[in-house]
């Protein structure tokens, strides 16, 4: 370990509320980057919009706090344009599952080579407390005066059904465990999804931390992360928040497939000069 977590800290002070779970996520990220000795100039952190999406501003690598819901397309563009970069997408549960849901589906399906970290507080933090797709059924929020009429979704089982090749769950209160998961997510070849339960003390109350801590339980060591059905079962356990690597398989990745296509193209047309390109336009 030659790099130091502090080296990844930008001089911008987080705007998060005191006690916000996102501080823990940020600390894990600093440590994970340091442990993996990621070169700051070869690392890009991309986010959408939300409290959580402010994170890239606090990390001294390349960073892009983009538009609500659009972290994944931007991250995909970065990775395809410059495949040697380490690309990490981050953002909130609303950002990734509501407005950004389609990009989540398709990025996972394409197995694009990025790590996607969702900071899940079961609420819209930045806009002051409306229901997110993860908000549990019946909860009262600013937009659900009579209780949420929709059942909250589990991001991990969705990710698996979308085709993500690596899926894990962490808890922001467990900085060490989360750090290890982040490292694995970044090292995974393909689309790695890490759902981190990261309490919003302001809109979900001060007890969220404690409640999650009580429910959080590491996956049993014998869990076979190659077993899709088992992974799905652990995702949806009643009353338990299983943490750890739920699912991990190896599939061809988008960057690999693009390289493959380039090779096929070059094999098919050994010469591809400008003259070749213009040939189709003349008799």
């Amino acid at each position, binding site marked *: 370990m030659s790099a130091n977590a502090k080296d990844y800290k*930008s001089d*911008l002070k987080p705007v998060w509320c005191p006690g916000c779970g996102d501080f823990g996520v940020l600390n894990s990220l600093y440590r994970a980057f340091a442990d993996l000795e990621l*070169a*700051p*100039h*070869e*690392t*890009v952190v*991309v986010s959408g*919009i939300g409290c959580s999406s402010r994170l*890239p*501003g606090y*990390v*001294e*690598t*390349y*960073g*892009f*706090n*983009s*538009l609500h819901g*659009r972290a*994944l*397309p*931007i*991250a*995909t*563009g*970065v*990775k*395809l*344009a*410059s495949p*040697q*970069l380490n690309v990490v997408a981050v953002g909130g549960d609303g950002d990734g599952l509501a407005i950004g849901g*389609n*990009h989540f*589906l*398709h990025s996972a399906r394409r197995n694009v080579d990025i790590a996607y970290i969702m900071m899940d507080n079961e609420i819209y933090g930045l806009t002051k407390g409306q229901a997110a797709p993860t908000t549990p059924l019946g909860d009262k929020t600013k937009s659900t005066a009579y209780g949420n009429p929709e059942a909250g979704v589990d991001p991990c089982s969705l990710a698996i059904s979308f085709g993500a090749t690596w899926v894990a769950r962490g808890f922001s209160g467990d900085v060490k465990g989360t750090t290890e998961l982040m490292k694995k997510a970044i090292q995974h070849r393909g689309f790695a999804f890490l759902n981190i339960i990261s309490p919003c003390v302001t809109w979900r109350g001060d007890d969220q931390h404690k409640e999650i801590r009580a429910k959080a339980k590491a996956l049993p060591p014998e869990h076979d992360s190659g077993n899709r059905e088992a992974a799905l079962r652990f995702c949806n356990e009643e009353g338990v928040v299983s943490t750890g690597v739920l699912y991990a398989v190896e599939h061809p990745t988008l960057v690999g497939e*693009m390289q493959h*296509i*380039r090779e*096929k*193209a*070059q094999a098919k*047309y050994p010469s*591809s000069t*400008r003259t070749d*390109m*213009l040939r189709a*336009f*003349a*008799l």
Partner: protein
Amino acid sequence: MTQELTLSIVGSGGDGAVAAGDILSMACASEGLHVIKTEAYGPQIRGGESSCTVRISSAPIYAQGDAIDVLVVFNWADFGRFAGELAPAEGALIFHEEKDPAPADLGNVRLVPVSFAGARSKNVFALGLLSAALGLPSAAIRTAVASRFGKKAEAVIAANLAAFDAGLQSPAAGASEIKLVYQKSEPKLLMSGNEASAVAAIDAGCRFFAGYPITPSSEILHFLAEWLPKIGGSCLQTEDELAAIGAVVGGSFAGVKSMTATSGPGLSLMAEMIGLSSMAEVPSVIVNVQRGGPSTGLPTKSEQSDLLHAVFASHGDTPRAVIACGDVEESYHAMIDAFNIAEEFQLPVIVLTDQSVAQRRETLSADKLTHEVRERHIATAEEMVDFKRYRDTPTGVSPMSAPGVKGGEYQTNGLEHDEQGRPNSMFSMHEKMNAKRYRKLDAIAERYPLYTRYGPVKAALGILCWGSSAGPVREAIEKMNAAGESVAAFVPRMIMPLPKRELEQFVASCDEILVVELSYSKQFYQYLRTEIDLPHDRTRVYARSGGKALGVNEVMLVAARLSEEVLV
């Protein structure tokens, strides 16, 4: 004896009308003739009526044919379905299927019945007939036929060549008095506007394309999906247009020249991300091929009605550049200008083309396809001392770095931010950064006052138009001036920022002004007025819906009517 003719072939899906037009156009291009070829289809997705119109000339031409000199009709019912779109000229020559008697109301035309139904490949047979009848280059057409079926079995080629020869010998050819005269010259390329855009993107150094299919822009995606991988780039078909423009902004942020192509509905969906590209100052290039609107509108027809959306869409004060192109050759140059401007000034650039330019095939000389390419400037180590990504500079352009560059790390966003890129919502910072971002438009206006001007230096009538309207206007004013009138035209190619000074000079140099455009709500006229004064008492507007190409005669008629009636 003519130096120019327009011919159309009309039939049903299986008749091969469009294929015949392709073959003919390719052959004429190889002889160095000037050709503009267009197609039209009915609503049926396949197998319905189709037609193909080819205008051939020994001198340069700028518009698709207005009135048809020679027509091949395999089937009158199909011809009827194009009512109002295919207009035979006075005295036009019509070869038609002899078994299908002609309708009564055709006006003054010369009908020549032919037994197409008896021929083996009736479209190729028709080509032979037309060759002989009109003095078209039969050897070249024969070569083009062979080349067209080049990958098929020998027998297929032979059968088609036989059909061609049978057409050549057809006695019906004798009915024609029209003969094309021309000098053979250097072979030309035959290209569509979409193809020119795609070739230009590659020449400009674009190595990442992300897009979502949409008529009439998809050929750009198709071409780049085939070519980018060959030269080390990549092409991604995304889940929608939001993702397409997002990936482009990502690719460009990462340092690679990136673009997307779409049409109206897609451009509408891109409005928000155009704002991010402008605010975070990440270059992006968007080709928008206009079609009839609003909403899904007329997806296969042309219109000039995305102008106001292109220049003004996206909430907030969002500087961007917009470049228009009026023909296939301009499609090439506009594209490279777009990349040059986007990369140098770090903002979104929209290229506005339209269906009529994007999908028609046109001849052009290969040596016209060159254009200076400018590269993105990545700050040097020296410039990186006290690096501020959004440094406020006299031109508004700030030093840029990109992932992979050591020492250039920065964090950006779509929030208002300070020179370092840190979020800042103070009024004073907002005003300063707005000024910085808009200053870039001044620099672009200075450096790229792109426009074309036709006609005399001072004129009785000055026509203002843009994009694909320029071709018919140019031909019309050439004819009018030849007839002793005094008409000029000004066509801005840079739409945002407009070449304002030159426009004002033009307006001052003409007694009367006529604005011509294919937008029902007069978008060009409205937009011009945001920047320059167009005094009511000497300005007239001819604005109509798209869905039908602007005709040379139409422009002449409108120009002539000007002194008689008010057009606004």
